[in-house]
């Protein structure tokens, strides 16, 4: 890969959670334009993925705000700085070049050439939960899938969908018309999903177009790569053998540190060590803010991440413009800042 194909950036932020979004604002005030990469398909990170409707009570100035509202507000606050988002991407590799800049690559083949990297990845990247069955790794990519990227791939398959949430039901409904056979396995009669989807699913069951089994995954049967059936444990304790060649488990997402673990940074228990002046990692030019960092006295609060973003931005400016004087200004009084914010 040559760096010509790469997107040239001042700063690349990893993670579009609240702290990553506020970093756009703080860096923006100092004229540092940001590209933001997130594995999810929307901004907000944990706030919108895990608890969009749950109220948060410890954001200064907001006695009560939901995860979704906080994320929406931060997007609005960052908007004047025209950040470029790259959703559905996970940063895989980082290479420091001889001139001190970094070449970054995502799993979907997007490249960045940047001087500053801000890791605001919270608990890591969200990845599908992998059911704990021996040998499941061998089936992954051949007959076990955690996402549907191309529906055609599932045409004429004997599909078993496991889980009872919206993803499980949506894909059961969407894949039913093209599948040879479709079954749904869920641990109980009730579903925590859109009522409309549940109704449609039950109608398919009634007309014999979808097999619904109450139970939980027990074991995978096949040659280690291709499934021939799945054994489930029924509510009554008896085994149920489900004929299928494809398994789609939908048990939500979990956070994994992911490729960052291999970047040679000073880590402890999946946290990245930083100093408390610049919030810089052991690698100059790579900063870490929010839940992902660690330092003496660290508190995993959104407000701590906001503070860290502000100090990080000062340090990033000095790194990008070593010869320029940084004049500290307030948004309440500085006409320069107000122009950048588009309010003057």
């Amino acid at each position, binding site marked *: 890969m040559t760096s010509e194909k790469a997107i040239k950036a001042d700063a690349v932020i990893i993670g579009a959670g609240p702290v990553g979004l506020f970093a756009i604002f703080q860096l923006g005030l100092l004229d540092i334009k940001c590209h933001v990469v997130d594995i999810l398909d929307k901004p907000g990170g944990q706030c919108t993925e*895990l608890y969009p409707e749950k109220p948060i009570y410890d954001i200064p100035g907001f006695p009560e705000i939901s995860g979704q509202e906080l994320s929406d507000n931060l997007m609005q606050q960052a908007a004047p700085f025209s950040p470029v988002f790259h959703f559905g991407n996970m940063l895989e590799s980082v290479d420091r070049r001889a001139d001190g800049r970094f070449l970054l690559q995502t799993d979907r083949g997007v490249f960045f050439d940047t001087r500053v990297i801000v890791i605001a990845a919270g608990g890591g990247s969200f990845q599908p939960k992998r059911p704990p069955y021996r040998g499941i790794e061998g089936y992954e990519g051949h007959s076990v899938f955690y996402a549907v990227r191309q529906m055609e791939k599932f045409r004429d398959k004997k599909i078993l969908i496991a889980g009872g949430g919206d993803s499980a039901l949506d894909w059961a409904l969407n894949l039913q018309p093209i599948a040879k056979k479709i079954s749904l396995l869920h641990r109980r009669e009730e579903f925590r999903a859109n009522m409309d989807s549940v109704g449609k699913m039950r109608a398919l069951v009634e007309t014999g177009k979808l097999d619904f089994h109450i139970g*939980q*995954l027990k074991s995978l049967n096949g040659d280690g790569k291709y499934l021939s059936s799945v054994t489930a444990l029924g509510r009554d304790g008896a085994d149920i053998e489900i004929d299928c060649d494809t398994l789609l488990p939908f048990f939500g997402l*979990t956070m994994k540190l992911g490729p960052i673990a291999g970047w040679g940074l000073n880590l402890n228990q999946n946290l990245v060590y930083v100093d408390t002046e610049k919030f810089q990692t052991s690698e100059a030019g790579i900063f870490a803010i929010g839940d992902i960092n660690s330092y003496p006295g660290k508190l995993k609060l959104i407000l701590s991440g906001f503070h860290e973003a502000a100090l990080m931005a000062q340090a990033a400016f000095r790194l990008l413009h070593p010869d320029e004087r940084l004049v500290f200004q307030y948004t309440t009084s500085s006409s320069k800042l107000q122009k950048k914010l588009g309010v003057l």
Partner: protein
Amino acid sequence: MPKITFIEPGGKSRTVTGQSGQTVMEVALKNDIPGIPGECGGACSCATCHVYVGKGWTDKVGQADEAEEDMLDFAFGVRDNSRLSCQIRVTDELDGLTVQIPEQQF
């Protein structure tokens, strides 16, 4: 102060002291009990603090409410004595509680 015993899937157990008002998940985190990441921080939103309540304790600990029951759909190997430990509040009544950690939950 109430003592809580955590039993790992391999059978290894550890007894630690909790404080009334904490959740069992918080006690686990504070004492570095492996296998309970509690990713969402106790918001009943991730199902990574799933435990099996020990024999004789299910009545005292009580049943999962609807939101917790919904969240358990995202856990593996759910049994009748399954609970999310972030939803179990430690009280003096629970002194001696044992909970078992599932094989895998993330």
